[in-house]
């Protein structure tokens, strides 16, 4: 194992693994990082929650060991020498305020709402109030996943474009007319999760693919550099069979 080398080298300077990227992956990567550091007290694990696009840029520019992205790499990113490894699958929950009586929407209705063609909640069985669409910044993996699956790329009309999963959930919890999307693993009972095409997102419905709005959590590495022994150790740990329960406790579905 590479472990012993890492620990020997760690005598002078503490070995480290730096990750950077998707804010949706916060819970999964946080739980994995914690478990990894418990097993390897000599290695320092860091995670910088900046968004998928930022994580991909960071690994390309050598600013972190492993980039985290909640969308698959596109062709140009692969052509630039980046590698992707699917760690888990995550549902994109469609969330509304807890006071909203609507319980579910179809993908088609979602597309119409996010492009502004349905503008009032009463058109989909809710109260008579203007729908407030809250989304993420253009570099977000969650936004990319949602817009790709609903076929609304570049045509969504957002009232707010926030820069993290947490900000989206906080804003929706404050506004009875709001709707938005957020990683299933980050959604708590401060907001209400809608059924999409009659299916509520869960580990089960994501694994059997009956819940349609889902995307991969990937680890991005660069062909231009080999991982440091400590980063490789974390990579191997994250992809080992023993981490299934950590990933599912964090609300995602293990991909191995």
């Amino acid at each position: 194992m590479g472990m012993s080398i890492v620990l020997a080298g760690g005598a002078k300077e503490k070995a480290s693994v730096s990750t950077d990227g998707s804010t949706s992956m916060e819970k999964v990567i946080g739980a994995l990082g914690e478990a990894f550091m418990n097993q390897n007290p000599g290695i320092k694990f860091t995670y910088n929650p900046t968004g998928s696009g930022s994580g991909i840029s960071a690994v390309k520019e050598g600013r972190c060991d492993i980039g985290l992205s909640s969308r698959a790499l596109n062709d140009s990113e692969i052509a630039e020498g980046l590698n992707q490894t699917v760690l888990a699958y995550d549902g994109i929950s469609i969330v509304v305020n807890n006071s909203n009586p609507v319980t579910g929407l179809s993908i088609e209705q979602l597309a119409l709402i996010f492009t502004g063609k349905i503008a009032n909640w009463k058109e989909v069985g809710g109260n008579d109030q203007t729908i407030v669409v809250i989304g993420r910044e253009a570099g977000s993996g969650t936004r990319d996943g949602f817009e790709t699956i609903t076929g609304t790329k570049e045509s969504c009309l957002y009232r707010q474009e926030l820069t993290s999963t947490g900000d989206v959930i906080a804003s929706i919890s404050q506004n009875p007319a709001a709707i938005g999307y957020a990683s299933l693993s980050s959604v708590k009972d401060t907001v209400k999760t809608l059924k999409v095409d009659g299916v509520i997102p869960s580990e089960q419905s994501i694994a059997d693919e009956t819940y349609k709005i889902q995307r991969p959590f990937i680890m991005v590495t660069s062909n231009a550099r080999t991982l440091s022994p400590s980063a490789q150790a974390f990579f191997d740990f994250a992809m080992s069979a023993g981490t299934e329960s950590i990933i599912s406790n964090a609300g995602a579905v293990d991909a191995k």
Partner: protein
Amino acid sequence: MPSSKTREVSISALLLAVTLVCVAAVLLITVYLMWAGLPAISEIGLGNFLLGKEWASTSSNPKFGILPFILTSVYGTFGAILIGVPIGIGAAVFLSKIAKGPVKRILTSAIDILAGIPSVIYGLIGMLTLVPGIRKLFGLPDGASLLAAIIVLAVMILPSIIKLSAVALDSVPKEYEEASLALGSTPMEAYLHVSIPAARSGIIASIVLGIGRAIGEAMAIMMVSGNVANMPSLFGSVRFLTTAIASEMSYSSGLQRQALFSIALVLFAFIMIVNALLHLILKKGKKHE
């Protein structure tokens, strides 16, 4: 003693060196912004860049017009000054001329604390209280707006306006006010017509600092302004020059990244112009005295 002379010389050389570090930082930033910001402007075209009404940097047919950001920053700063300056000067008069003893001490330290609150906290509290408050008060679908940003900015610039104005008012010679009182004015009339005009240059300097802080703030307003690149309206979702840079820089590439540096250059030019204008006003004020 020769040794004390050498020491004097070497200390003044050291002080010169640390001052030059500051000057070098300004020069470095200026040169870098020019170098990084000009290529995109020449590629997009100065007119299209400054006067374009549409910003869609990641679209398949990208558009790089920053007029919405420029107008939002101008309106936002102006609005913050409009609210912040009268409140700030009023508070400064109270602190400098009326408040005494423990009241003055408590108020002064409260304002110091206000100055020390990190901007992300202003943003968070704004997001959770001000944004829903504006939504309810005006019956809007959503409260994240230019107005929310203006209110946050107005509160954020208060400490610098109050502190500097109070110092300026403190240094107005007592004889000025006494002369006014002796001529039969009430204390309030003396403050308004004598003390404030006499402290004019200090008060204007405090407003410059306030404008500087308002135009440069990003974190707090990003959380309350909705952050969509619309043309500004008081109750609409808006994006500032600063938040345009902050929200896209980390994942930008190619022309998009260059255009963000161009926005930074515009922001830099703005602050230069504001400073120059106010220096001019101060100079003129001195001549008239």
